[in-house]
């Protein structure tokens, strides 16, 4: 198991993005705690197996259709 912080940056003001993050984390079986959340940046702490954290990063990079994710920066929590 690993614990990482994902700094997600982009145009993230669409309502429901945080709910989408938590829903996708739940779907792939990792935990996600949302910290700072602005219109252009969201910080989320994720815990789970490394391969699933990679999968979370991939999903975040695409994001829901009404959100544009410019980048996902990862660091150990």
């Amino acid at each position, binding site marked *: 198991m690993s614990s990482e912080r994902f700094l997600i940056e982009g145009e993230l003001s669409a309502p429901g993005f945080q709910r989408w993050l938590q829903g996708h984390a739940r779907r792939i079986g990792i935990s996600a705690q949302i910290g700072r959340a602005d219109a252009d940046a969201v910080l989320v702490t994720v815990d789970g197996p490394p391969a699933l954290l990679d999968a979370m990063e991939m999903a975040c990079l695409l994001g829901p*259709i009404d959100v544009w994710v410019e980048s996902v920066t990862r660091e150990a929590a």
Partner: protein
Amino acid sequence: MNGEAMRDQWYPVGIAAQLTPAGRDSLLLGEAIRIACDSDGAALVTDGAGRALPVITRFGHVWTTLGQPERDLFTIPEADQPGRRLVDVGTVLVRCSPLRAVENFLDIAHFPFVHTDILGSEPHTEVQRYEVEIRDDVDEVWATKVSFYQPQAAKSAQGGINAEYMYRVPAPTCSVLYKTCPARPEEWDVITLFVQPLTETTCQVWPWMALFDEDSSMTDMIHFQQMIFVQDRSILENQIPALLPLDPGMEIPTRADMTSIAYRRWLKRHGYTYGAQLVAA
């Protein structure tokens, strides 16, 4: 039309060497077009109202557009390299989204399972880490440092090799694969997938290659590549949803899908959504 930005792009609509004065009817982005040639053999493409559309003849194919492209059709410098054999592979009609066809071409992980004992084999199923970027200077998606064991990487291959790949997406329905050349390991073979979007859920695929291969007959090279695309077709025609999702929805992309994710991000950023699904599956 869904995906207005895609009108202003160039699309393949036929093989230049196979044009006839009588012509034939086809579709482009759901609209009727006609492809023919004049008495000198020059390509003529018209829309449903008989209006002449812009034409470019390049890579052995005729390209046209329904809109007003800001850029010239992309180039492939290797196509002009002496010694390469340029192969018009033919065409395959596929009942899938044109974007799905390109995405499948970019997917490495399916090789051992769909192209078994040719482009992949078990137990060599792991996709090693590779690099993907959207190159802003040329506005293209590139995947580099891709490496995969292949039992028969090309018609010219003698036994299995660890093939190196680079993928390039220079247009929403076109992809160029640069692949280790078995006959000349210091060069790249070029294999392209040019896709004509007939409708959002049907497309005409026009593969084309620029290879160093002095031994294989043209027929053998064409048959080899057609065999690969026919294997892909049955997978493509059964994908659900039929349109390419631009939202992860119920899918769970992994690191092996980095190229697909970059491609979808690029489509989303530009509004290239003809053939895309815009709501979560």
